[in-house]
């Protein structure tokens, strides 16, 4: 199994597996980069409506092509049909959200289910047609398991290139509209047009991904990479880039895994790989990750307890809180019998002096930029200059005696 995966990753598993790997990588990269703007615009679910709205187009395209005497399975024809009906679904969502009192989530729900239902009816009708038996259109639901043709890879490559070009061209307007649509409109941007361009990106990704991942799962490729990428950076351009990389790597690795274990469909595996990257980001990303947040909170808690403990020592008060005792013990500021060490007494005196300085500083400096910084933890050295502190000390008077010193 492992050797198989390695072979697939190194494109050594044969022509078809290599084709699937490259195609899935390109698709993932295009989907991740395009999906980022949708995610930042907080309209991720519109992609779900668009994806489900492709189905009736596929069915109708097959029927039309078959009735005209051609091959109903012509890929370009089917994709063109899917694009047209997805665009119709998109327009209906926009129209409902804009022109009626209904909100966008309702519009998405309605369009998604109605278009999908209609599509399933069409597929059933096609099953009963004489030429429909081997149509294999169900493959568009969850992606084909039988691999790819060269033609499929070309479609993904061209569509992916269009998406990447559009992302580069429209990155500024799309960022502006996602962050501050009112400002964008005020500076003369056509917000509706830019939103439409964003949706055309999504539509393109959906259509080129139909054969490989299927219309039900393509949404995952559009949404999960940007969400995972967001954990790692605070800059829009880097989120786009990281989402493209995460999508691309997930597609490639997912394809390799499914190539090594025949019978496992490619699309779902890619989505699961994507999800694994998301979980890893959620847990381990510095800054926004869950573990980083827990560690940050604990460090903060220790600082608070340490300060409280030192002030208690300075005032000669007993300490009962077990965490405070543990913190001071670990810092070697108190002995086992809770009596302050030399270090503890020195630190306590220093803390008390800091409190006194703050007390005076908050009377002297009415400016919020200084007095507003008092939170019981920030040392005054971080806010005032040495001269200013010396001035405060003159007001306090001689060094205070600390109990127990």
């Amino acid at each position, binding site marked *: 199994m492992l050797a198989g995966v390695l072979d697939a990753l190194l494109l050594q598993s044969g022509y078809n597996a290599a084709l699937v790997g490259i195609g899935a990588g390109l698709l993932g990269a295009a989907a991740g980069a395009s999906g980022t703007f949708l995610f*930042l615009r*907080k309209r991720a679910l519109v992609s779900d409506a668009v994806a489900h709205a492709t189905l009736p187009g596929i069915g109708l395209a097959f029927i039309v092509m078959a009735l005209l005497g051609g091959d109903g399975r012509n890929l370009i024809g089917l994709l063109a049909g899917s694009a047209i009906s997805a665009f119709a679904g998109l327009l209906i969502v926009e129209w409902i959200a804009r022109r009626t009192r209904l909100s966008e989530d309702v519009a998405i729900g309605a369009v998604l289910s109605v278009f999908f239902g209609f599509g399933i009816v069409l597929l059933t009708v096609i099953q009963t047609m004489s030429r429909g038996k081997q149509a294999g259109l169900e493959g568009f639901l969850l992606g084909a398991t039988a691999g790819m043709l060269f033609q499929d890879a070309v479609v993904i490559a061209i569509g992916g290139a269009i998406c990447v070009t559009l992302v580069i*061209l*429209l990155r*500024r*307007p799309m*960022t*502006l509209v*996602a*962050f*501050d649509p*009112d*400002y964008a*409109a*005020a*500076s*003369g941007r056509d917000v509706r047009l830019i939103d439409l361009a964003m949706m055309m990106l999504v539509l393109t990704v959906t259509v080129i991904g139909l054969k490989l991942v299927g219309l039900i799962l393509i949404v995952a490729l559009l949404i999960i990479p940007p969400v995972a990428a*967001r954990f790692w*950076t*605070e*800059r*829009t351009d*880097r*989120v786009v880039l990281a989402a493209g990389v995460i999508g691309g790597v997930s597609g490639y690795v997912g394809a390799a895994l499914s190539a090594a274990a025949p019978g496992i469909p490619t699309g779902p595996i890619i989505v699961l790989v994507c999800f694994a990257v998301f979980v890893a980001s959620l847990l381990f990303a510095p800054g926004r990750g869950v573990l980083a947040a827990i560690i940050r909170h604990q460090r903060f808690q220790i600082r608070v307890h340490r300060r409280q403990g030192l002030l208690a020592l300075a005032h000669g008060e007993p300490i009962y809180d077990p965490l405070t005792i543990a913190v001071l013990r670990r810092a070697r500021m108190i002995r086992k019998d809770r009596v302050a060490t030399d270090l503890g007494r020195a630190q306590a005196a220093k803390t008390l002096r800091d409190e006194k300085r703050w007390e005076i500083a908050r009377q002297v400096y009415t*400016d*919020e*930029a200084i007095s*507003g910084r008092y939170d019981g933890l920030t040392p005054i050295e971080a806010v005032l200059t040495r001269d200013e502190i010396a001035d405060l000390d003159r007001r306090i008077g001689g060094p205070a005696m600390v109990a127990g010193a």
Partner: protein
Amino acid sequence: MSAAAIELATDHGETVETAIGADVPLAVQGLTVSYGDKPVVFSVDATFPAGSMTAIIGPNGAGKSSLLKAVLGIVPKLSGSVTVFGKPFETARRRIAYVPQRASVDWDFPTRVIDVVMMGLYRDLGLLRLVRPRHRERALDSLDRVGMADFADRQIGQLSGGQQQRVFLARALTQGADLFLLDEPFAGVDAATEKAIITVLKALKEDNRTVVCVHHDLATVTDYFDRVMLINVRKFAEGPVASAFSAETLQATYGGRLAATHIDQLDLVSA
């Protein structure tokens, strides 16, 4: 040019655009805005002279923000026209900078302070031009003017409300505009920010730029502004603070919603 003169000019067959001189930064005629079939701004005329600082005052829901948004084309106008430096709004848009309400955006957006300020340069940069050091310097200079230069590389989510407001103002400054439209720039900001913003706005005025602010704090109107416009769906008064900002006009605008004692506390020039 006064409203009467415009009327005279239009009566004689001139179009409004030619009637208003290029020296008038902003003129609004018969502006009506509605949400559904309820007008929130009804047939408002107003002129904002060059180098003036005007506060748009009125009760909550009086259509102050809607007026600004309609002027800027963010919400559709039901009727009326907007003239900027003697030209139709669309052609003179470059000379306007807008500062939206702080609460109108998501501050957890993945972007840094400098990136937001740089958005003021997007029109100059176009779609493809790369950001050069001189662009960055222009943005940093704007940040410096609002006292936020040290925060350039911070993520915007780490800023306080007042700092966010100053970043929005810096973005507008970067555009190098002649007409500044601000929506509640002093709402919920700290004292340091209020001081920083008013200093910048007064400097703009000294530089013969024109400033229009939707404003809610009646107590600071006399100190901060030289002109007021009082609206509550309709316009109730417009002109220099000394004459237009009186107990009578306030009472007319706010109706029963402003207690007489409150008006007494304002240090008004009696009409």
